[in-house]
C-alpha cells in the first residue's frame, strides 16, 4: 500500500470486515426472501398458541363489556415498539369489529404519537372511525414506576378483561401481570428482554418467547413481505447457529482435543500454597492489568495465599518494565487464575497449561497459610 493510499489512516475499528460481511449476508437473506415470498403465497408458519388466543381474549372482553388493555413496553420508539404497535393494530381491528373498548397505554411520548396514528388507521381500515375514541390511546408517564403505577391503577379501575403486554418490559412486567391477573384478565405477553420472560411465564396465560414476538405480525396477517422476512430471519438464525457450531469446533481443536494436554482444575493448587506460576497477558485482551504487555510477554508473579507480589518484573518487547500491579487477594480454593489469565492463543495455552498443571514442586509447601477453618 503506497503512502497516498486512500485507506491510509482509516480503518475498521468496530467489528472488522468479517462482522460487516456477516451482517450484510443476513441482510441479503432477509431481502431475498421478501422478494421470493412475493411470488409464493403458500409459505408455512408453525402454530403460535399465544396469537391464536387473541380473538378469544377480545371475544371474552366483549362478552364482559370490559376494555382490552394494550401496553407496548416502556422502550423508545424503535423496531420493538413499532412491532408491538403492529400487533396492536390487529388487536384494535378485531376489537373494533366486536365494538370492544380499547386502552393503549404508552410510557414514551414518541411511541404515543405513532400509536395514535396506527390505531386510528386500524379503525379507518375497518371502516369504523366513528368507534375510535382518541382518549383510548394514552400517554401516562415516561418514568418507569410512575407508568407502572398508572397502568396498574387503570387495570384495577376499569377491570380490563384482556391484557396484551408486548414490547420492551423491565422491572414493571410483573407488576402489570400480577395486577391484571388479580382482576381475572386473560393475558398475552412478550418481552424482548430475556430477563423478564420468566416473570411473564409465571403470571400470564400466553407468552411469546424471544423472536416469536417478531413472527407475530407475519402470523396474523400472512402478508408476503412479512412472511418472507420471517423466512429470511430463519435463514439468518441457521447461519448464526452454523457459525456458533464452527466456533465451538474450532475452539475444541485449539484447546487440544487431539493432544494429551488438558486444562485441569489444578489451578487451585497454585494459589492454595505459595508457588510461582507464569501467566501470559494478551496484548488486546480484555484484561486490564496486563494491557501494557506486548504480544506474549510472560509475567511471573509469586502467588501465595493472602496477597500476590510481583517477584520478577518482566520486560516488554521494547525493553520497558511492565508497570507494577497492585497486590490482589487470592482466597483459598481460588479458581480464577485460569479465568483471569485465560489464554487466547495456542502458543500461550501450552505455557499456561504446563505451568498450571505442573507447578514447580520445590516451591509447593502444602498447608502453608491455610486458615484454620479450611484445614
Amino acid at each position: 500500500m503506497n503512502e497516498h493510499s486512500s485507506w491510509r489512516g482509516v480503518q475498521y475499528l468496530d467489528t472488522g470486515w468479517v462482522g460487516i460481511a456477516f451482517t450484510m449476508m443476513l441482510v441479503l437473506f432477509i431481502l431475498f426472501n421478501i422478494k421470493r415470498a412475493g411470488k409464493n403465497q403458500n409459505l408455512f408458519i408453525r402454530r403460535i398458541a399465544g396469537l391464536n388466543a387473541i380473538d378469544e381474549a377480545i371475544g371474552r372482553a366483549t362478552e364482559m363489556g370490559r376494555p382490552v388493555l394494550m401496553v407496548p413496553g416502556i422502550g423508545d420508539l424503535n423496531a420493538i415498539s413499532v412491532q408491538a404497535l403492529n400487533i396492536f393494530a390487529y388487536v384494535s381491528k378485531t376489537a373494533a369489529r366486536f365494538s370492544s373498548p380499547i386502552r393503549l397505554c404508552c410510557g414514551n411520548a414518541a411511541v404515543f404519537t405513532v400509536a395514535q396514528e396506527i390505531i386510528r388507521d386500524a379503525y379507518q381500515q375497518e371502516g369504523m372511525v366513528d368507534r375510535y375514541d382518541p382518549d383510548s390511546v394514552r400517554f401516562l408517564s415516561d418514568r418507569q414506576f410512575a407508568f407502572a403505577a398508572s397502568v396498574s391503577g387503570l387495570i384495577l379501575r376499569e377491570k380490563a378483561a384482556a391484557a396484551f403486554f408486548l414490547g420492551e418490559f423491565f422491572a414493571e412486567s410483573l407488576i402489570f401481570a400480577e395486577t391484571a391477573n388479580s382482576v381475572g384478565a386473560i393475558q398475552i405477553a412478550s418481552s424482548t428482554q430475556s430477563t423478564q420472560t420468566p416473570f411473564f411465564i409465571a403470571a400470564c396465560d400466553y407468552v411469546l418467547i424471544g423472536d416469536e414476538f417478531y413472527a407475530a405480525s407475519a402470523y396474523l396477517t400472512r402478508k408476503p413481505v412479512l412472511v418472507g422476512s420471517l423466512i429470511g430471519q430463519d435463514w439468518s438464525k441457521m447461519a448464526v447457529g452454523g457459525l456458533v457450531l464452527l466456533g465451538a469446533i474450532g475452539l475444541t481443536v485449539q484447546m487440544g482435543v487431539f493432544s494429551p494436554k488438558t486444562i485441569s482444575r489444578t489451578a487451585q493448587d497454585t494459589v492454595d500454597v505459595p508457588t510461582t506460576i507464569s501467566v501470559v497477558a494478551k496484548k488486546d485482551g480484555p484484561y486490564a492489568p496486563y494491557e501494557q504487555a506486548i504480544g506474549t510477554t510472560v509475567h511471573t508473579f509469586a502467588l501465595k495465599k493472602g496477597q500476590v507480589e510481583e517477584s520478577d518484573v518482566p520486560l516488554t518487547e521494547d525493553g520497558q518494565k511492565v508497570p507494577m500491579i497492585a497486590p490482589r487477594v487470592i482466597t483459598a480454593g481460588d479458581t480464577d487464575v485460569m479465568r483471569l489469565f485465560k489464554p487466547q492463543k495456542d502458543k500461550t495455552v501450552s505455557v499456561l497449561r504446563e505451568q498450571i498443571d505442573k507447578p514447580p514442586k520445590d516451591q509447593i509447601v502444602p498447608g502453608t497459610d491455610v486458615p484454620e477453618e479450611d484445614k
Partner: protein
Amino acid sequence: MATEDPIPTPTPDLGTKLQSMPKSMLYLILVLCCSIPLFFKIKVPNAPTPAAKDLFNALNSIPSGSTVLVESDWTNSTRGESGGQFEALTRILMRRGIKFAVYTAADPQAPEVSRDSIVQISEQERAAGEKGADRWNDWVNLGYFPNAEGTANSIANDPRKAFGSKKDINPDGVKSDVFKSPVLKDIKVLSDFKMLIVITASNTSTVIIQRLSGKGMPIGMMVTGVMGPETSVYYTSGQLIGLSAGLKGVYDMETLMNDTFTKPGLTNFGKGDRYYPTLHFALLLLILAVAAGNVGMFLNRRRKA
C-alpha cells in the same frame, strides 16, 4: 335462636388450604421476613463468585492516578442493590487513588443520586483517615445524557467531543470545562480511560456492550440481581472483565474489600452486609411457599385417586 344453615359449607381440607393461601397472609409473612432481620446483626459466611473476584481484581490492578469512566444508571428505586454496588466501587476507587468521571445515560435523577452518594462516602473515608475524593480534582460529574444509544456511540467515537460541552464546579466555585480538570485533562482517546464501570438497573448494559465493547477500554459491570443472568452472558464471552450482580454481588465486593483493605477503622461493609441476611429469609420463604403449594397439590391428588 340461631338459624341453621341448610347447606353446611364444607371445610376445606389441608391440601386445598395449602394450595390457596390468601395473598395477604403471604405478603404479611414476607414483610416480617424482610424487616425483622434488619434489626439484628447477622454475619453470613460468603464465598465470592469468580465474576465478582475478577471485577475486584481488575479494579485493584488499575494504576493509581489514572482515570476510569463510571456510568451510573441507577436511582433510589434500586438503591438496595445498585446503591451498595456504587458505594463499594467508590470506596475502592478512592482508596486506590483512581480518578473517576461519572455520567448517566438512563435517568435524569441518577446524577444527583450518585453525587450524594460520592460526597457521603468521601466524608466517611476521610473520617477513617483516608484521602476521600475531591470534586474536580479526583472526580467530575458529567451529568445526564439523554439517548443512551447515541451517547455510547459518541463516546466510542470521540470522548472529548462526547463530553466536550460538559462543565463541573472547580475548587473556586466556578463552572468550568471538565477537560480542564485533573481527572480528564489527559484523556484523548477512549482507551485513555483505564476502565469503564457501569452500575445499572436498566438496559443500558446491552447498549454499552454493543457500542463500547472491544474498543480498548475494559468494561466491568455492576447490575441488579434480575439482570444478572443476561449480563453474565457477556462475562462468560469475555466482553466484560468482571461482573457483580445483585445483593450477592454487593456482599462479594464487600467481602473482598474486607480481605484487602485491612487498615483499622476502615468501613468495608455496607448495604450488602446489612441486607444479605434478609435475602436469605425472603428466599427461604419463597422455597417454603412453593413447597407448600406442591404438597397441597399432591395431597389433593391422593385424595382424588
